């Protein structure tokens, strides 16, 4: 298939991997964090570790939207769906994420709440138009990639005068989370594979602080397997040469200044939150957005006076450490025993971009071989 097969060519992959083997310093360890779940997924799905030297390790980052959403936000949404006569619209993965006490949006739906799976923010608008007598709430999540479509939906709702449409906004920002991981230093990493799709929106210049403040090499990488391997080679070279720069491997999509139209759209509708809780990372200042005063009419948190809810994570679940790059999924006692994609206990086992789900679904033979 054109524009896909070129980036999945096995011969080219082995050629690039051979260069990594040649250039790598056998005396040291290379720990590279892939920030995005999309990269984690590609690494496991295509078996990229199998091509890498022993002393190069990928450390999984927090860039999976459903993984970092704290259970309290899902509980708040369930409470809203159960107490008010609303139609709650959301993306599929979120339906299965565990909230407190084994509950989830899926279970709330089975109990009778009107919770609908949609494919885009414009689907939520369509539901609102088709049900003028009912309140429709779009449970919006994601990084900078999914934020502009939410902003667009809110703008359209205002232009059409849709009185029954609101957004429960949970959009988060990439650079603050990255800076937090770097400032804590606990993940012990030597370089970062930077986000692909997020970078198309925010641009490569958004990571300048990460490199200059923490002397951290960063390469913006595409999501295809050859992109990941080439970016890894670029990181190896930065480390070997003692450079700490933002480099852009994903030049076919990412510009230095990003997508300014999308940025303007976000700035028109959203404003930074003073603080937002991330699963695993805790409360991070200025790490998320909320709907601004001009569009406050479309803010579900305001219209329904939604309360902040706190929920403790499941006992034994090490998702927080996995999200911070400190632990691997198979170091968790629950991994593949109590916690599986069918019965996820932690959020990282839900989305295909979650590190635990990716390792469970594609990489279990590696754990099995190690055990033998």
């Amino acid at each position: 298939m054109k524009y896909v097969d070129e980036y999945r060519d096995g011969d080219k992959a082995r050629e690039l991997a051979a260069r990594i083997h040649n250039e790598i310093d056998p005396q040291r360890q290379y720990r590279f964090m892939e920030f995005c779940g999309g990269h984690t997924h590609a690494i496991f799905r295509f078996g990229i570790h199998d091509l890498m030297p022993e002393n190069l390790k990928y450390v999984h980052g927090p860039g999976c939207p459903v993984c970092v959403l704290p259970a309290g936000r899902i509980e708040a949404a369930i409470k809203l769906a159960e107490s008010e006569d609303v139609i709650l619209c959301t993306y599929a993965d979120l339906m299965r994420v565990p909230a407190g006490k084994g509950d989830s949006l899926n279970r709330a739906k089975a109990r009778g709440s009107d919770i609908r799976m949609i494919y885009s923010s414009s689907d939520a608008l369509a539901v609102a138009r088709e049900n003028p007598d009912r309140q429709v709430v779009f449970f919006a999540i994601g990084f900078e990639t999914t934020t502009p479509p939410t902003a667009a939906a809110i703008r359209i709702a205002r232009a059409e005068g849709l009185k029954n449409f609101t957004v429960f906004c949970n959009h988060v920002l990439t650079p603050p989370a990255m800076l937090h991981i770097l400032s804590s230093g606990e993940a012990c990493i030597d370089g970062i594979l930077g986000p692909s799709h997020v970078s198309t929106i925010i641009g490569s210049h958004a990571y300048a602080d990460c490199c200059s403040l923490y002397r951290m090499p960063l390469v913006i990488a595409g999501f295809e397997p050859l992109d990941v391997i080439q970016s890894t080679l670029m990181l190896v070279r930065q480390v070997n040469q003692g450079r700490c720069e933002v480099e852009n491997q994903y030049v076919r999509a990412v510009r230095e200044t990003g997508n300014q139209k999308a940025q303007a759209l976000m700035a028109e509708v959203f404003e930074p939150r003073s603080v937002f809780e991330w699963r695993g990372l805790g409360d991070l200042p200025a790490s998320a957005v909320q709907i601004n005063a001009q569009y406050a009419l479309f803010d579900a948190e305001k219209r329904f006076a939604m309360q902040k809810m706190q929920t403790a994570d499941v006992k034994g679940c090490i998702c927080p450490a996995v999200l911070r790059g400190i632990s691997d999924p198979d170091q968790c006692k629950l991994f593949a025993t109590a916690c599986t994609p069918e019965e996820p206990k932690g959020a990282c086992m839900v989305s295909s971009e979650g590190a635990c789900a990716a390792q469970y679904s594609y990489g279990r033979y590696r754990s099995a071989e190690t055990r033998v």
Partner: protein
Amino acid sequence: MSRLDIKNGLVEMAHGSGGRASAALIDGLFTRHLDNALLRQGDDATLFEVSAGRMVISTDAHVVSPLFFPGGDIGSLSVHGTINDVAMSGAKPLYLSASFILEEGFSLAELEKIVISMAEASRLAGVPVVTGDTKVVESGKGDGVFISTTGIGVLAEGIRVSGDRAEAGDAIIVSGYIGDHGIAILSSRQGLEFDTQIQSDSAALHGLVADMVQAVPDIHCLRDPTRGGLATTLNELCKQSGVGMRIHETDISVRAEVKGACELLGLDPLYIANEGKLACICPKASAAKLISVMQAHPLGREAAVIGEVVADESRLVVMQTTFGGQRVVDWLAGEQLPRIC
């Protein structure tokens, strides 16, 4: 007798009441199109002769949404689905039963289209619908039409096809392109319509199976990879037989359009439903013979060996990727696409 206005009429509660309206619907629509000697007996139970030997039975409920999709509809699907389940035992399907749950307010003209398509599929397959039932539920309590069909068949002597017979060393064969049905359904689903040439592969596979068991009576396993796709079918067979599998991505046929749609929607063709394909496990020595027989049949032209059965206590399906790496091909978790069959 109440008159049935098929052109403009709607399903009413009375059509399921057992009274005159029910009789009019059965005579004017179901019996008229599905007509055959056994159905014409008109009794509560249909009588037929059986020969000595072994019989098989299988049942399948169909709730597909939308009811009409490129390459088929719920009517033809409900015939093919059950014929295939019977055929996957290696048996020759003989008769079908059909039970309809209709929603009040559903258009009789649409219902007739579905029944005509069912009759056509049944006639082409040579497997008549010999008994049936109709119930009507209130508006809002159904989704137009649900169809449940049951099939019975006879099994020739010496054939023992079962999911627990896969052995280390066996060959794994797939009859053709995978993922067509699921993508065809998806392309016509509300809120997600996209233009594609892809048609559902919905088809009755008993003719292909008859040729296969005749050529190689010792086929170990047969299964049609419907819900959950090829990945789920292979995992089921591993679990039942207590073995593992090693498959090769390069040998699995996926149309470029299906690959493209999957890339765009974040789906994996290995998990997409098929309604006219089968997976077969057979002794390695018989694989070449089986492939040539399958390729001679119109429904098996692209048949290929995609891997082999191995001894593996973990019962994993591991795939060599075209990229050169390896990965586990796991069971489907949750539902990738609801209501596909």
